[in-house]
């Protein structure tokens, strides 16, 4: 491949690495990458897309539930539990961490804490989405990337 492509590949690799280093993604993402093969060349992107599409409903429901007075903590907890489970599927590390915080506040029946943390959840969720979108786009432009390798 020419120098340009090599550069692109390196860039993509760096982006990918930083996603791990900054803890946006965890081991699960690598699992997905390892599942990608010739029969499913875009597996990872498909999964991520599916995740973002499906999980939107949780955020919507959580938003709704947080508007109610008084707050139904067990319902909030249940919704967040499901959302967390879903987030774990793509290895959304930071998102998961915020989910855990949220659930802690739920258990403590701390309404303010819940609302605040929920904002964090949404922020991480959206940030990750953008980063991944950029990452996939670049990958597609560059062509097949090297085999997944664990971040050092």
């Amino acid at each position, binding site marked *: 491949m020419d120098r340009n492509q090599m550069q692109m590949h390196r860039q993509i690799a760096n982006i990918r690495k930083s996603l791990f280093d900054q803890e946006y993604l965890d*081991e*699960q993402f690598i*699992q*997905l990458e*390892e*599942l990608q*093969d010739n029969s*499913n060349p875009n*597996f990872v992107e*498909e*999964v991520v897309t*599916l*995740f973002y599409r*499906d*999980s939107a409903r949780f955020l919507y429901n959580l938003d709704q539930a947080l508007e109610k007075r008084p707050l139904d903590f067990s319902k909030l907890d249940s919704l967040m*539990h*499901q959302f*967390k*489970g*879903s987030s*774990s*599927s*793509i*290895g959304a590390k930071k998102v998961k961490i915020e989910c855990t915080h949220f659930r802690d506040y739920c258990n403590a029946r701390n309404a303010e804490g819940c609302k605040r943390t929920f904002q964090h959840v949404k922020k991480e969720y959206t940030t990750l989405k953008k980063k991944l979108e950029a990452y996939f786009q670049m990958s597609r432009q560059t062509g097949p990337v090297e085999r997944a390798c664990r971040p050092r």
Partner: protein
Amino acid sequence: MTEGINGFSSPRADVFPAGLRVLVVDDDPTWLKILEKMLKKCSYEVTTCALAIEALDLLRERKDGFDIVISDVNMPDMDGFKLLEHVGLEMDLPVIMMSVDGETSRVMRGVQHGACDYLLKPIRMKELRNIWQHVYRKKIHEVRDTESHESLESLEEILMMRNVSEQSDDGYLLCGGDMTPGKKRKDAEHKYDDKDFGDHSSVKKARVVWTVDLHQKFVKAVNHIGFEKVGPKKILDLMNVPWLTRENVASHLQKYRLYLTRLQKDDLKTSSSGIKHPDFSPRDAAGDRTDHIKMQQNEAVNSYRAPSNLLLQNANSRIHEVDLKGTASLQTIEPKKVLTGFAAKSHMASSSNIGISHSFGSTQYSTYNTVLPTQYSWSEGFTEIQFKQERNPQFQVENGFADLGLPTLQQHNQVNLQPVQSIANGLFSKERDKQAKSSSGTKSSFGSYSVPSQNLMPSFQPPDPSFQPPDPSFQLPDPVTSSTWSLKDDHSLEQTSINNLELSAFWLQGQHCSSTNLDMQNKVPECNDPEFIAEVPSNLYDALRFDYEYEYPSDSLEYPVVGQGLFIV
């Protein structure tokens, strides 16, 4: 995949575990996609499902179409645990639970409900690679238990065997009842013809779970026809259970006859003492078989008598009425089988276990223990079963509560303990038959189910290997801790346990404690779910409908029979 007669694929035994047929149930589409891909990478044959009900339909539709089920705990239409129980009861398949929640209580519930493993999300590929062990383990157990000819064949045949169950030809091979040798032979041959070893998918008989309800129908039919004139066809017609086959009934009838014969013999032998036998000392498994058999016989008789109420009386009277024909052969052949079943339950834990460990073949002989609870101690099962009230006191006593020095066993106490006990029991794998010795009722700290623990073991489906301490006696202390939890349970437990205890004749066949759906009606037990584990949803237990059925997750063994003369296999 090789296509079977019905067009469903069968596992390729020659390359096991490749081709393992997995059903994945998860409402999260992302996870469903990932799991599907992971399982395919393991060379498994994957079917996905987003709804529990859909999964059950699929399983029912393709009775032998799957080897193992993996399900998420949180499903929108049905609680994962409930699904788990249904699958265990109806299809007798190993079920793996998944969840992002790894709380001990949740995991424990999974085990209680019969899960053979509990995976935490995110799930790694390597965890999925090994799920075939659960399928294999189950097969091995079945083989060991049934001692059918098929099971003694090569491993491949075992793996291909869909129904290594009590439906095996054992019943046909044994002399008993009024079956003429000629007829027997014919049936046996016919049965073998059906079992086409080469074509593993040909035998699609699902394991029939003889629930209390079903058995009652059976008994009613038998009594209506008249025991002398009874025949499988007539019974089947009278019972009017569409999915039941003549073969099912014939096999069940065989066992029933043997049971009655045994009861009759016992009846003549001993006088009712109404004793509780909480402390069956561990038998020396090393003793010779005959001795064991005798012991079992005695025990069986005793235990049979012990719960004076109810059920036994009915059975007794019935026995007297019945004029059993030549069962001479029973003596020689049956005893082990019969006794095994009998011994298995309740206090006879030790003896029963011994029986079991001797692998008397079909464990299908129901133990006519009156003290069923032990078996049902399968946590939830307990609560669901609607036993007659009277049972409780007896049960309590029998369960060796006395041993605990708790003379005034309150039902609540008992209740509390039971679930725990069952949990503990659940932890014991069936493999621990050897434990029979240690299991005397006294040992179990809970008292009530000590016996059950022994009995339970077989019934539990192969629990997570990590749960199986090799030394039986060693396990007993464990339940203690768990039992303490139960003490905190609320009254609902109490109620449920009572209900459970009341279950007079229930016979669980199959491996899981859970309400069986074989019987179309699902009676929701009145008991509330015991909240001995924090998050038990209130409707969970309702779904369990233990009514009378309590199944032991053991693949083999006998199913407890509550004395009422109900014989459920």
